[in-house]
């Protein structure tokens, strides 16, 4: 297959997947966001064709069975990765849609994850791995600009500058520590310990972003209104109690989010299209 044929295929798969997810999820995303998702895949292929064509196993489900928690529960760890192999080396990667800055600042977090996956893979398949890496499909702002302007030269230039592949240190020594911690978390889940993240966490900046936890995580969480930590966080930023009550509830995301939500859904599912015969 020629590249242009593959790109055609990507578009076709993308449309199918979009349609399937829209029907299954019952709601739409805006045209802009949809295009952004498609562009991420297309640039992934353009930029990382080398890697993509060497993939030997995609979305491999890894399982580490027969683990025990400190309180004696049995459990299994699961994860999903892609494996790339050529003549001399095998490596494992995980695709994320986070931006590279976020990943770079949270490297330790991803290392822990891929180390566990690598451990499972090497045991399961008896194949040694040479490398682990994260691939970020979120391309940089400069490329986004070039893309919007449809400036082919700049696109080429920005593409060559972009580095979506972040190699991670690969250290099997750390696996046990992570698995032990995982086991403790399983006990917490099974014992139904579900207190929210404390308000101090909400007020802190998230690693690799300029955003507070309370904004980046909580503002996207629907159960924030009933959350004691979020209430503390949202109502303690000055202003009298009365004043903040309305504001606290008048929160359906930023203006841009609201605009997007209404437009996407109005375009996809206009209530005027409901057949009048239905209503009775």
């Amino acid at each position, binding site marked *: 297959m020629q590249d242009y044929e593959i790109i055609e295929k990507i578009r076709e798969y993308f449309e199918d997947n979009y349609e399937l997810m829209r029907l299954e999820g019952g709601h739409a995303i805006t045209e802009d966001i949809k295009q952004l998702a498609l562009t991420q895949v297309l640039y992934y292929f353009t930029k990382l064709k080398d890697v993509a064509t060497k993939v030997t196993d995609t979305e491999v489900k890894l399982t580490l069975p027969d683990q025990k928690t400190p309180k004696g529960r049995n459990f299994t760890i699961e994860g999903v990765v892609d494996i790339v192999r050529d003549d001399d080396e095998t490596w494992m990667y995980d695709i994320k849609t986070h931006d590279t800055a976020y990943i770079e600042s949270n490297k330790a977090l991803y290392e822990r994850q891929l180390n566990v996956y690598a451990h499972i893979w090497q045991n399961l398949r008896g194949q040694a791995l040479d490398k682990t890496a994260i691939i970020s499909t979120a391309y940089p702002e400069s490329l986004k600009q070039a893309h919007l302007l449809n400036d082919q030269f700049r696109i080429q230039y920005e593409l060559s500058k972009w580095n979506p592949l972040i190699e991670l240190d690969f250290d099997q020594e750390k696996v046990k520590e992570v698995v032990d911690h995982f086991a403790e978390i399983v006990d917490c889940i099974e014992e139904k310990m579900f207190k929210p993240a404390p308000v101090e966490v909400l007020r802190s900046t998230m690693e690799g972003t300029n955003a507070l936890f309370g904004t980046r995580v909580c503002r996207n969480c629907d159960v924030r209104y009933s959350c004691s930590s979020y209430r503390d966080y949202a109502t303690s930023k000055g202003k009298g109690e009365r004043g903040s009550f309305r504001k606290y509830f008048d929160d359906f995301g930023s203006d841009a989010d609201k605009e997007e*939500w209404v437009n996407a859904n109005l375009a996809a599912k*206009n209530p005027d299209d409901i057949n009048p015969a239905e209503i009775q």
Partner: protein
Amino acid sequence: MSEKDIRYYWNLKGFKPNPKQEKAILHVKGPLFLTAGPGSGKTRVILWRTVNLIVFHQVDPKKIFLATFTDKAAHQLKEGLRSLLGLITNETGQPYDISRMAIGTVHSICQDILVDRNRVFSPDGVRSKAPVLLDSLGQYFKIYRRSFWRELLNAGGYLYSDNIEDDEEAAQREINMYFSGSDFYSRHEAATNIISIFNRFSEENLNPSAHQPDDEILRRILKMYAFYCNSHIGEKIDTVDFSLLQQRAFNKIKSFNGSKDAYDYIIIDEYQDTNSIQEQIYFEIARKCKNICVVGDDDQALYRFRGATVENLVEFEERSKKYLNEIPTRIDLDTNYRSKKKIVNFYTDFIEQTNWAKRDGKGSYRVADKDIQPFNQEDFSAIVTTIKIEKINVFEKVAQFVFDLKANGKIEDYNQVAFLFPSLSYRGLKNGAVAEFETALNNKGIQIFAPRAGRFLEIPEAIEIFGLLFHILERPSHQGPASGGLKDYRQWQLNAMYRAEQLMAHDSLLKEYVSDRQEEIKMVKADYEALMKVIDKKKWKLENALNLDMIRDLASASGLSQTAKATLQKRAFLELLKKKQQAKQPVSLNYVVNRVTSVDWSILDLFYQLCGFKHFQKMYELAEEGIDEGPVCNLGLITQYLARFMEEYTPIITASFLSDKKFANTFVGSYLYAIYRLGESEYEDADDPFPKGRVPFLTIHQSKGLEFPYVVLGNLNKIDRPADKKEIIIRELLQKEGEPLDRISHFDNMRMFYVALSRAQQMTILPQWKGQQRSQAFKNMFAQNVYPVIESLNVAELPPSKLDNDDLGKSYSYTADYLSYQQCPRKYMTFNKYGFIPSRSQTMFFGSLVHQTIEDLHHLLISEKKKKQEA
């Protein structure tokens, strides 16, 4: 491969199979027919047999197809297998990977076959287009919705006069008369009848155009079915219901030649409850390898009403000969390890209280020559009844007995005593004996858990939330008299409104919140009128394309709110309109009106905000601390129904949708009413169905595959009825033979009680009271035998029953569980554990879309590479 043989591992696990179990486990080649009586260790046999294939015969797990009946059973098989293989890995260092094994319910495996992630059922590189699955509620709404219903009736030739409403009513009456013999006009009833016959057709893999029956009504129904099947074919993507899912998987398997190599071993559990299309699937995939193993017990067949045909099991030997040209090895797993001797003797006697012989004297409608023997040989009084006195006193004595068991430490938890009933409720109302047993237990301070006994909409959380939503979004204005069901439903609405008023009276902030939302709605409605005035005056047409000049006129409409004005003049909005115009896809005037007069929130947003008020907040706190998860589970279920409404109709609430109570009529009058009538039930956790501290009340169907130390059979009567119309139709259309129509219901009832009677380990209690109705078989049993009464038992002398702690373990995902929990345990609780539906999930949608498409791309590249290498 392994130096230690399988016996070594049996030993390690303390498992001593009997000779028949051993033979079944070690069987490898050719078809195998396992009859497995109650408590005969069949799950263990299936597990060890699979282990034997994988470990000692080097069968690749992805070449094994292992299907069972429920998600719970599937989970047990999967985790059980993982655990046994893990044990062997620990000894040998040899790892096993079952993540690609086809293991699950037949429906889940069919779905996997249609998605075909492993690219087994299509030529290289071709990506399968899987259909979207409509669950049973989705199927109901598809058919029940007026517009589709009319198309369907039209396809059946029911709409012919000028008066469509009259035609519809006549059609509904005819359909209801045909199926249930009552002259009833209800569309809900008719839709429900039509759905069950459609599903049956699909499960029989029936081709509607191949039949021209004399029966005119049936001809109409077949035409409707043909229309229905076609309606699932979409422009971009198809849909299927649960029954068509199987048919579609079957067609996919059949149409691809490589399918015959997909599996080397096929194992099907609960084979007595398989239907015709499933049987066809199994024989199709076993065509080449012939290694099909079926496991089941015809005496425990329960699902004829869902199209199951017990004959698949009873006649397996002949059918295997016919389809595979091989006679299967038959092994009877007939030692019962579960129950005390007298329990086993009781139910083996019970099932023979009727005549199973075929009328021509040749054979029997049961699997012949089964000889179930109890492993336990104690002379323990395990079948117990009561003195026949007034019902209320009997129930009190039974409740006292349950109380004493716990007080004397004979059970560790109340969930070790199960109350079983042929049915728990009728049209959303608890049956008499169910309610009375509940009261008797409550009087002793014992709570019950009856997940399918009540209507979901009647639980307090639902009444409260919907009541508040009605205050904000209104409810239909009812005119005219209502019949029974509708009257109850209106009363339910009034109760909900009243309850909401009480909540608001106790929380002034909540009251303020509700009135803010009401004001907002008033405002968009007023804006709508203001804009429409301009449009009328200018004689513009709503459906026409927007001319950007119109915006100025609209924005200066008299009485228009500041908010609306601001929206109209927002730069981003104008840019969007311009862009659309330049792209020659201008929006309609209507679109702009809707955009300006829609509220910013959906009903799901309202729900989440309402949860921020203290009454609901407390429910979350109870769950956060692990004290009581009940209320939050129910709130989670409410989000699922709200999301479903948005999925079926629209998430957007516009002024035009609100006008003339259109929204209220759709949401309350149509959608919720359907849920109300379907009697959708409360939350159930598939992994953990029996909460601690409560006595489970179950239907006998729910108790399938379960065991309890003590079982109380709450009702000894089930009336035999004439054969179901669907059964008659199928027999005639497909010229099928089977159990005589006039015996079917009787046989089914016998089997159902057989299941109930074989659940108990220690004791089955069969209460008797004055004026009680009992099925004939019970009358016989009581006439022939004398059973001790509970009054005479010395509870202190009973043996203690330990809580079953069979911890198979669960699987946890690194990202979806471990990382999510660490980010925020509370967020994890709501969305991952209790299934709340998020209101806006753009980010998730985005991520999945990118990942899925990249996965597809990788598959394409992998197969391209393969082609190149081959060339």
